[in-house]
């Protein structure tokens, strides 16, 4: 995946560049709007991460000019979360926005969603190592042993299994499993994951659910 990051704040630009490169993406970084627009028009990117507040040419202007030429997906980064600002961005043709501060895992998840081409086909059978999930019958077995899960535990496991190798943030998990789209002060997600582990991982040798300290959880056959 080819990503263009347009961000004037040096530290933010650096960590976005490093973080995305470490995940195996090819990343170009522009330190101001003018360079960003130039790069965006010259090279073809899969997705553009665009900061709103920049000197000389702000994100709005970059997007306005970019949209005359190309329809590359654009994710806005903004420190302001006025409704008016959001609407303005979406009207100009932005595809998504994130309010600072945001979690890095959240950004990666959003970028993946933006670059996914076409609706993904819902798998009826999922297989991860010796874990089998029958989505239609909501039946889970591991090494031939049937595992009984509650509705939400199943939803959580299904989310993990369809996002293998990806770090999922707590807020993303809360939003996808319980439709709770706000940062809660509670550790509901941690508790739910722990209870899922109790059933899915603890009785078996190979662990599938891994904690990624300070970020969230990863579902993976590799430790």
């Amino acid at each position, binding site marked *: 995946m080819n990503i263009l990051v347009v961000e004037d704040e040096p530290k933010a630009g650096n960590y976005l560049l490093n973080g995305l490169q470490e995940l195996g993406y090819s990343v170009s970084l522009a330190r101001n709007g003018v360079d960003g627009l130039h790069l965006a028009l010259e090279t073809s990117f899969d997705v553009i991460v665009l900061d709103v507040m920049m000197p000389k040419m702000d994100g709005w202007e970059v997007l306005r000019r970019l949209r005359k030429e190309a329809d590359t997906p654009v994710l806005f980064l903004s420190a302001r979360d006025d409704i008016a600002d959001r609407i303005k961005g979406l009207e100009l043709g932005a595809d998504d926005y994130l309010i600072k501060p945001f979690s890095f895992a959240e950004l990666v998840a959003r970028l993946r969603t933006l670059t996914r081409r076409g609706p993904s086909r819902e798998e009826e059978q999922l297989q991860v190592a010796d874990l089998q999930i029958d989505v239609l019958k909501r039946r889970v077995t591991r090494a031939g042993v049937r595992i009984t899960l509650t509705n*939400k535990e199943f939803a959580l496991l299904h989310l993990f299994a369809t996002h293998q190798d990806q770090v999922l943030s707590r807020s993303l998990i809360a939003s996808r499993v*319980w439709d709770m*789209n706000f*940062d*809660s*002060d509670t550790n*509901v997600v941690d508790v739910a994951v722990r*209870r899922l582990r109790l059933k899915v991982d603890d009785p078996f040798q190979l662990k599938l659910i891994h904690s990624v*300290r300070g970020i969230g959880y990863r579902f993976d056959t590799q430790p």
Partner: protein
Amino acid sequence: MSRRAHSLTLRLALLFALLAFASVITLGVCLYRELERELIRRDDAALVTRVDQLRTFLNDSNTLDLIKSKPALFQNMLGNRESVLMIGTAGKKPLLVVNPGNLDLPNLAPVTMDHPLVLADVQHFSGVDGVPFAALAATIDSGDLGSLQVVAGRLMTERTSVLANYRLRVYFLAGVAALLLALCGYLLLYRGLLPLRHLAKHAHGIGVGNLTERLDSQGAPLEVLPMIDAFNGVLDRLAKGFVQLGQVSTDMAHELRTPINNLLGETQVALQQSRSVEAYQQLLASNVEELERLARMLDNMLFLARTDPASALRQRQELDAADEMERMADYFEGLAADAGISINAHGSGVIWAEPMLLRRALANLCSNAIKYGAPDSELVVSATPSSEGISLRVSNHGATIAPEHLPKLFDRFYRVDESRERSAQSNGLGLSIVATIMQLHSGRYGVTSENGVTCFELFFPGRVLEGR
């Protein structure tokens, strides 16, 4: 109202002037009419007297001779240019014509001999240049010469000028009266409004530094008292709000201290010497925790500051209460089970609310209820519809909250126990967010705590169908 501000004093002064002018003019016109009528009566009487005299006078033939021989005598006798006298026989050249002003004499029907002259016999004409002209014609028996006709008339120049003078004086007096009254009114009002100016000056001096000061109602006129009271009321509310705002800022700064102190301290200690990769990872993870806490607090503070009812209300939906209760039970299932608490969620009806805000409010209440709930107890989440809306209740078993704390529970950063032991999980904003959400929905919220059962109740008003 984008009109220019107007001066009350000036307006009233002008109004006084207008009233004075109008009343003096009205009086003047009445008096003028009376005077005019009196003057006309007098002039008419003079004409009648003259013709009467001529009737007697011309009976003598000597007089007739005298008229014929010395007409100038008669002309002089009349004494002015406005008078007209004509004596003659009908159809013949007149014997005497005195008409120095060369006025056109209209045709008049003479009053017969046997008829005594009265004022009503005088006839009036418009005359020359609008100056009225009065005339009287009569038949005279002159003995030898038979019957003669006398026409006596007078152009009322003098009367007209007297009346014109009178009119002018009336206008002048009215003008003077208006001017005087305007001036008096202006001065009186200026003096009368002095208390208002004093108040304005006083109010001007009240600022952030002396919000406790109040406007003085002593010596103020009765009419201004309600305004002073209202203004003082505004000051009271402002001062209260200001204190609260200041308190919130202070509390927030204190709340920020803990995570920032942790970040700073842990990081500085870690940098004192080289450490293992494991230790650095641990430090960074801990930093992330603190930073997430800061971000959450920021998010909550912004949420509380940005109360935009219009956009919240636009996104209201009719939500199934049973579904929402079930969602809460699902969400907190694990957390509650860890604490040994079972969740009993039930209810029916429809909630007219913005879904995210509703869930946020309920989640805040439920997480509190689990946090402070007694082990092996039941957490009840219920919805009870009524004709006006729906009541949502979250009640748990646990320590009773003292009554003095109850009204303050929804204040920002208010905590029943001052210890920071649990503050890693809460930042004292949860319930104030619930309060804000309920205010956005024009709903009600409240809490009771008795006999070990604490119950939070939220009331959402039902949907009002407008313009159907």
